């Protein structure tokens, strides 16, 4: 199939496709581009980069957060266990 296409693609066909593509490139789309100014995009890119850097720094802290909570709960449990006899004495 591909070889057949290669053989049958004449210079006229090639010219027609090139002309069609040229017309397509110059045809303006109905609504056009809505692009920001270069300086706006520059600021946006700087901000994105800063947020990305902050996210990279913050990532290990976020990853450790469940372990912090677990360690806190374990410590609270141990404290409660140790202080339970004294607490019972106070209550009784």
């Amino acid at each position, binding site marked *: 199939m591909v070889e057949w296409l*290669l053989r049958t*693609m004449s210079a006229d066909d090639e010219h*027609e*496709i090139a*002309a069609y*593509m040229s*017309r397509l490139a110059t045809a303006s789309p109905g609504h056009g*581009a809505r692009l920001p100014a270069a300086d706006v995009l520059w600021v946006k*890119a700087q901000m994105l980069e800063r947020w990305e850097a902050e996210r990279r720094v913050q990532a290990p802290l976020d990853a450790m957060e469940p372990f912090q909570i677990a360690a806190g709960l374990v410590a609270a449990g141990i404290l409660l266990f140790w202080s339970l006899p004294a607490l019972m004495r106070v209550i009784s």
Partner: protein
Amino acid sequence: MARLDERAFASCYQHNSRALWSYLYRVTGRASDADDLVQDVFCRLLQAEVGALADEELRRYVFRIGSNLLADRWRRATQEASWLDRLRGTTDAHVDPEYDDSVSREFAALKPRERALLWLAYVEGESHEDIAKALGLSRGSIKVLLSRARGRLRGLLMAKGVTARA
């Protein structure tokens, strides 16, 4: 290699943003997607160490980032479409109504990768090697894929009775 400074970035943006937008719009068929992608491309460009590249190399680099983002989008769309297929039995091939005008109707009927190939080859005038780099394909496959895309476009133009010289 250094990054682009603000002045070099503004110059690059001024020279390439419209051409890039046209490429992305013609391939995606959606102006809002093209708007978003152009911004993504230039934000990524600022993180790349391309300060020493000449204007032409920079233009190719910008189109390469754009093509990579398009490829990512196609991959995501394919995955989402397969889920939608399972849920609804159909997919949404959504393009702007304005896209399907008298000039671009035949182009719109091509597959996105064919549209990208033809645009880069004919409008941007890129070599097979540069197209291969931009689309993440092997250099050897470009000639075959381009011929196939040309053949499909020629078939569509003939079927609709559209001749470029008319």
